[in-house]
């Protein structure tokens, strides 16, 4: 399989105030939210990032999406460095996170055309892609309804469709099924499988073990900013469930840290 993502010692440090230092009991004036994380992902693979809240998953994804700068290390996205060629990286990725939202005053139709325009997609190609994606997500009847008036599920479907308006090689989804009902969550899961089948690489962050077991080829476990384990689901879980394996690793890691 072709290597499409190569994360090398990616690190993100945030400055701390004296008050924060005291409350976190950290002696240095900075805090490593992501601490020398390395992993690879391949074409047609779904790679899952698993970890508790505050482990560094979202920060890692933000760095891969070039929204924030890495303090150390680098990552090659389809051969482009997130540090040296952020524009090329953005051209190659689709990024979906609950923190980045669509303007509630506009319709899915407007948003799709707007983002296609921003990404320089020719109008005819954008129109065909919109038709396909809106049909795939059942957004047709809601295409001209303002985002603010849509249900949570339809908002997420619209966000999904718009995040991949440019047909990227890699899609990075942070908690894509958060807050969704089971039916919409299933639609999202099925779509991620379709992306995988079509040869796209998916980087997925989620707390839902079932989603990881059903979708991911490999899983990386991040705890306290460090990648503590990374392998295929069967290799990681062995005879146990992924959930049991995770808590086993989590307990060991946190005890060691204490």
């Amino acid at each position, binding site marked *: 399989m072709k290597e499409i993502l190569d994360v090398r010692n990616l690190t993100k440090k945030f400055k701390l105030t004296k008050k924060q230092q005291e409350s976190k009991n950290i002696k240095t004036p900075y805090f490593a939210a992501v601490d020398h994380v390395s992993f690879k992902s391949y074409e047609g693979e779904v790679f899952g990032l698993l970890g508790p809240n505050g482990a560094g998953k979202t920060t890692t994804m933000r760095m891969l999406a070039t*929204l*924030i700068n890495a303090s150390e290390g680098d990552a090659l996205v389809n051969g482009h460095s997130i540090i040296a060629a952020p*524009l090329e990286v*953005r051209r190659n990725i689709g990024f979906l996170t609950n923190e*980045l*939202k669509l303007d509630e005053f*506009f319709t899915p139709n407007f948003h799709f055309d707007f983002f296609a*325009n*921003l*990404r320089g997609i020719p109008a005819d190609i954008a129109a065909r892609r919109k038709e396909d994606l809106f049909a795939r997500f059942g957004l047709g009847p809601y295409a001209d309804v303002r985002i603010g008036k849509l249900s949570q599920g339809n908002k997420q479907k619209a966000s999904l469709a718009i995040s991949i308006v440019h047909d990227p090689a890699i899609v990075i989804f942070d908690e894509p099924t958060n807050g969704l009902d089971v039916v919409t969550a299933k639609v999202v899961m099925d779509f991620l499988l379709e992306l995988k089948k079509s040869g796209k690489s998916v980087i997925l962050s989620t707390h839902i073990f079932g989603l990881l077991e059903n979708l991911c080829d490999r899983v990386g476990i991040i705890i306290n900013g460090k990648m503590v384990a990374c392998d295929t689901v069967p290799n990681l879980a062995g005879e146990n469930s992924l959930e049991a394996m995770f808590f086993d690793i989590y307990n060991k890691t946190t005890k060691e840290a204490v």
Partner: protein
Amino acid sequence: MGNVTLAVMKKEITRIFNDRKLLFAAVILPGILIFAVMQLTGMMTQMIGGIDDDHIYEIHAVNMPASIRAMLSADELQLNIIPATLADAPRIRQDIADQNTDLLLIFPPDFDEIVATFDPATAAVPAPNIEIWGNSVRNESAEARHIVQTMINAYHHSLTHRFSINLPTAEVPDGNFDLATAGDIMALLLGVMLPMMFILFIFTGSQALVPESVAGEKERGTLGTLLVTTASRKQMALGKVLGLLFFSLLSALGSFVGLMFSMDGMMPDTGDLLDNTGFMDIFSAMDIALIFLIAVSLSFFFVALLAVMSTYSKTVKEANAVTTPLTMVIMLGAMGGGLISSNSIAFALIPIFNSSINLTAIINAELNTLHVMITIGLNFVLAIVLTGVVAAMFSSEKIVFD
């Protein structure tokens, strides 16, 4: 202009057009409010201090000599001379105190004869005295005193001086030799008021829109969605600023129209000036073009300045709190042009103040071409630099995601 700039600009314009509440609050409401407030102010001014045009002043006169009576009888003065006796004086004074009548004049008996023979160099007794009783609280009484005193002073001067200035004549019975036209009076008022209000309107128009559009995008999480695309930060910032500039100008225009319509109510004494003296009678096409260019460049500068402050803020509330004190600075600068008149180039280099000076100069027909060009150029340069700052801020993770 890049594709991204146009797309973002179009989005900003569509966004505000779609938000009817914001559109009404930022573009239409200021004009309506200005009109309403000015009308109300005008009505109150008239209620408090106005005198009806056809008011006939009641002048009670004891021993009024023929010479003075002749002077005060001109129809234009609108004085009703009511003969009275010394015995009536206490009652009339009480009426004046009660604001029921306007004025009481008490002359010595045989005033004309005494004045004709009186020689201040040889006289053993004081000169004859005229008592003028009025009530300064009552506007009609104060105005009657002013008219009568002006006429008597003129008579006094004609008796004691070798020559006189502006004595009433048959042609000018009210002694008003001021040839200022309604247009001149209007231009004077506009010269003082308009630059300040014009600049403030442009600023408040921008202030209503920019925090919501820039800090609002951060607060709603929609700015990050834009930043994850391949669009250039510079073009994105420029598109945002230009889209907001469009509405800022619309807002300024709305306020300006409101002000023009409201002048009638605001200035009761020159109430019908605007009906007779149009904008085009005061300003040439070149003046209007320069005013427009100043407005555009100043709006651009304000929008970019507010965009920097709003990008720095985390929420719309914070942005409003940060930009509100700026209003005071803008007001000071906007007032400057009406208070200080100078051709110094140094003044053309002080933002806001330079626009105020130039607007005043245009209104007073004292335009300095170099000044106005420097002002417009400086506004554009500052706006472009500040737009660049916004673009740089869009690239700062601390500012966008903190």
